[in-house]
């Protein structure tokens, strides 16, 4: 019926998606190596050309609502936090650790590693961390790990895969940072910025609701008063 009704509703749906993304960032405020996301809205079906029905002259364009069109992950290296744990590793600078999973090699910046019964360095899920030679990293006899033996690769086309892991294409030529033991990379979530964005998103959602109620009110007037001819 009223085009505006659907335009406003699509804006509200987009804000809901944004809220979900922001909530995921906040939930991961303590996840080591977590990279925060940023979503951007675009009006979809870009512009509808409006034409004056009687004269046929172009009136202008109209957006047909909003959609979350893009999600970008901020991959900037974050500050490292000292933990003193011998098996906690961090990449100082660019680059990712490699983990051999059942689905193939995955990449991570979360270095909260541990040892398995075979004496290999494994990640939280128990999958082996790969060395520079592409083979699982083995622990020294005293239970420590040699940081120089742990492989770090640069990636392009990085995408999140959950469990602190990423997929991507290794870029062998690019320069990578160094591995440090006894530290982990902190989460990339900026709590205050996320909170502010949440409030902004809530207000935009409210504005969409107001637009819908206003249009609804107009429709009510149209159906009630215009149709109510004085007899």
């Amino acid at each position, binding site marked *: 019926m009223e085009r505006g009704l659907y335009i406003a509703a699509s804006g509200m749906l987009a804000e809901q998606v944004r809220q979900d993304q922001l909530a995921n960032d906040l939930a991961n405020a303590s996840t080591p190596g977590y990279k925060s996301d940023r979503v951007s809205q675009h009006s979809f079906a870009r512009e509808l050309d409006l034409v004056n029905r009687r004269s046929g002259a172009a009136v202008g364009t109209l957006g047909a609502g909003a959609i979350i069109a893009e999600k970008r992950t901020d991959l900037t290296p974050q500050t490292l936090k000292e933990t003193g744990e011998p098996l906690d590793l961090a990449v100082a600078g660019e680059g990712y650790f490699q983990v051999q999973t059942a689905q193939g090699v995955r990449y991570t910046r979360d270095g909260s590693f541990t040892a398995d019964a075979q*004496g290999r360095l494994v990640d939280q899920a128990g999958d082996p961390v790969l060395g520079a030679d592409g083979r699982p990293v083995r622990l020294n006899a005293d239970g420590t790990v040699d940081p120089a033996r742990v492989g770090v690769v640069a990636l392009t086309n990085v995408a999140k895969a959950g469990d602190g892991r990423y997929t991507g294409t290794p870029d062998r030529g690019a320069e990578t940072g160094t591995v440090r033991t006894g530290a982990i990379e902190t989460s990339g979530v900026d709590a205050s910025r996320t909170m502010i964005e949440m409030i902004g998103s809530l207000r935009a959602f409210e504005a969409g609701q107001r637009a819908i109620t206003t249009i609804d009110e107009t429709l009510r007037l149209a159906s009630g008063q215009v149709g109510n001819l004085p007899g």
Partner: protein
Amino acid sequence: MYTAAAGMAAQQRRLDSLGNDLANVSTTGYKHVRVAFRDLVYTQAARGGADGVELGSGAAVRTLGRTTQQGAIKQTGEPLDVAITGEGFLAVRMPDGRQALTRDGQLRLDATGRLVTATGGLLMDPSITLPAGTQPDRIAIGADGTITADGRAAGRLRLVTVTAPGALDGGADNVFFATRGSGAPTAAPATTSVQQGALESSTVDIGSAMTDMISTQRAFELASKAIQMQDQMLEVANGVKR
């Protein structure tokens, strides 16, 4: 809303483990627990998102087991106190015959002259009996665990280790049990030694445990704010129809 709730649940579990660590701040040989966070699966956003826009579903926590950090060595001067430096544990025997591991080196002699742990009174494995009437201050314990009483060899403390100490199962009375994940106990490396007249302190550092607690509490609060925000959105959505 579930995303934020998952984050709160993860922080809650971390608070629990921090609470337990703080309770053991003066437990001899106590190793604090390592807790790790991870993000959860990413799935295609619902209506309102274009193709390829994926949203995460919160965070989860996993216990990585105990730290292998060395606790500070505290001198006590007691002849039957031993501190382990380096990797490894003292092998002790549970009353039911199982082998257990401990880093709590506060030892004493029982009524029959056997060497036992102070907490739980567990026998050493293999058990070590000192000649009747041996005074504790005439006992010397070497760096390799050899015990001599009045200059005569009386046994040797067995030092063992496992491949993955983080996966040990913690029991009561400050002891650990080997699991399939940790691997079976083997002799400790030569770098491990014992020091007589000293004890290993708990690895819990009150300062860092407290700061961890504060940051966990704040993260918990943030996630709860996110829930409130999403609830408010539902309220707004309900207001569409008047």
